[in-house]
């Protein structure tokens, strides 16, 4: 079974952009496949040396607590913090969104939050697996709705100043429970962006929708 390309491929091939995919755990293969289809050169990132020459980074879905521990032991935590400071374009889905957030609620106390985008997220905010769902979403800037797969997804509970909310999902109303959006808002942001960072609470890589990855490539090329 494919584990995707080995790390250490050439930084560029015929002008194509090399994009890292954090490959410590999670649905790495699907992200690699999407980047391949878009003509980028995916690079698996498991150690700090693997980031050499990448111009963008995708943080996949998976278990954020596990990835957090593996980031620490591989010393990738400091390396990713450096890349965030440098303003490298990044895309995080689900667990990747949690890692890129500035605040993690219901996480482990020592969980890594890289602070690449100023949002607060609650892990498993939509509930357990039995509540995992698929739906169609309108996304700002996209002509057609996006089919979104939410798996034990994180819930964005706060969005900082300057963060663009590109899409929201309707939340099921439950009597006697305060809407998590506050002030009667039964919606929650599920795609957010700030500068070079794009995060989604769902998995475009599972439905094979290329558009958020395309957006990342456009940010890399400076559009």
């Amino acid at each position, binding site marked *: 079974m494919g584990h995707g390309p080995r790390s250490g491929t050439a930084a560029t091939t015929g002008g194509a952009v090399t994009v890292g995919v954090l*490959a410590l755990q999670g649905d790495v293969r699907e992200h690699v496949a999407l980047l391949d289809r878009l003509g980028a050169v995916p690079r698996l990132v498991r150690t700090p040396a693997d980031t050499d020459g990448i111009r963008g980074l995708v943080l996949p879905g998976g*278990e954020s607590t596990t990835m957090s521990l593996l980031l620490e032991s591989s010393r990738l935590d400091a390396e990713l913090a450096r890349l965030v400071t440098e303003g490298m374009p990044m895309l995080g889905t689900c667990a990747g969104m949690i890692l890129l957030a500035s605040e993690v609620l219901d996480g482990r106390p020592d969980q890594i939050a890289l602070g690449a985008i100023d949002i607060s997220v609650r892990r498993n905010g939509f509930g357990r697996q039995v509540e995992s*769902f698929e739906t169609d979403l309108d996304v700002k800037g996209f002509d057609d709705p996006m089919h979104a797969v939410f798996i034990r997804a994180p819930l964005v509970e706060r969005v900082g100043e300057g963060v663009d909310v590109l899409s929201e999902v309707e939340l099921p109303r439950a009597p006697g429970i305060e809407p998590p959006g506050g002030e009667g808002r039964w919606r929650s942001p599920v795609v957010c962006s700030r500068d070079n960072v794009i995060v989604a609470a769902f998995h475009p890589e599972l439905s094979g929708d290329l558009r958020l990855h395309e957006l990342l490539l456009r940010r890399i090329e400076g559009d």
Partner: protein
Amino acid sequence: MSVTERTTGTARVKRGLAEMLRGGVIMDVVNAEHAKIAEDAGAVAVMALERVPADIRRDGGVARMSDPALIEAIQAAVTVPVMAKARIGHFAEAQVLEALQVDYIDESEVLTPADEEHHIDKWAFRIPFVCGATNLGEALRRISEGAAMIRSKGEAGTGNVVEAVRHLRSVIGDIRKITTADSAERYAWAKRLQAPVELVEEVAATGHLPVPLFCAGGLATPADAALVMQLGAEAVFVGSGIFKSEDPARRARAIVEATAHFEDPSIVAKVSKGLGVPMAGQEISALEVKLADRGW
């Protein structure tokens, strides 16, 4: 923005959680304290059960679904997904586990089978199922019944990885052969495997199972994890191997590192140092009960 339908319990959502566990370690735990140790060590999920397989073997008797109170205590203790086991064919136990909102149900040969002919109709549930398989035919039959993840059926509770290796090599070896089979041969494969031809066609086209393939049974060391990952497993289950060893927390952490970095022997070497005594292993030929023979 329009209000759109949301659908739950789809095949994509069920298989999706398995995709998220790839590259990770799922650990057997028997209480909340073990569950915390597992989560702290980096487990991607825990399997809640009353006794680890080594103890089930030792005690004998009928092994059943765990006490719901125990499962709830473990759900309360951790934030990672919690799985639990139902007996083969025991759909009422599975209904109870669904009511408890466990994240995955393992229809498991480690428990005493409740039905000698039928597995659970897994399409009838919103919760995803994982099932064991010793070969490709068994894997495809379980998938046709609705399993959203397949794992090997290595002899649980033995600390001996040999059976899991046999199953992985059998499943992956046959997949490799099917990808080069012509259309007439694919019908013959379906017949030989006793599996739906549609699934055989899908395997031939994609080169892998329609659902993730994990390894379970007999893993005890970081090198065991690296071995099965290199053979093509996409994640590993570790049962008795952790909490029957001298230093469970360290061993658990080491297996997590080895699973993530399975292609890097220097990291596997580093994390394998000074882990203390692993669980005592057993020769498969000396076993009184072979669990892999359960399931049809």
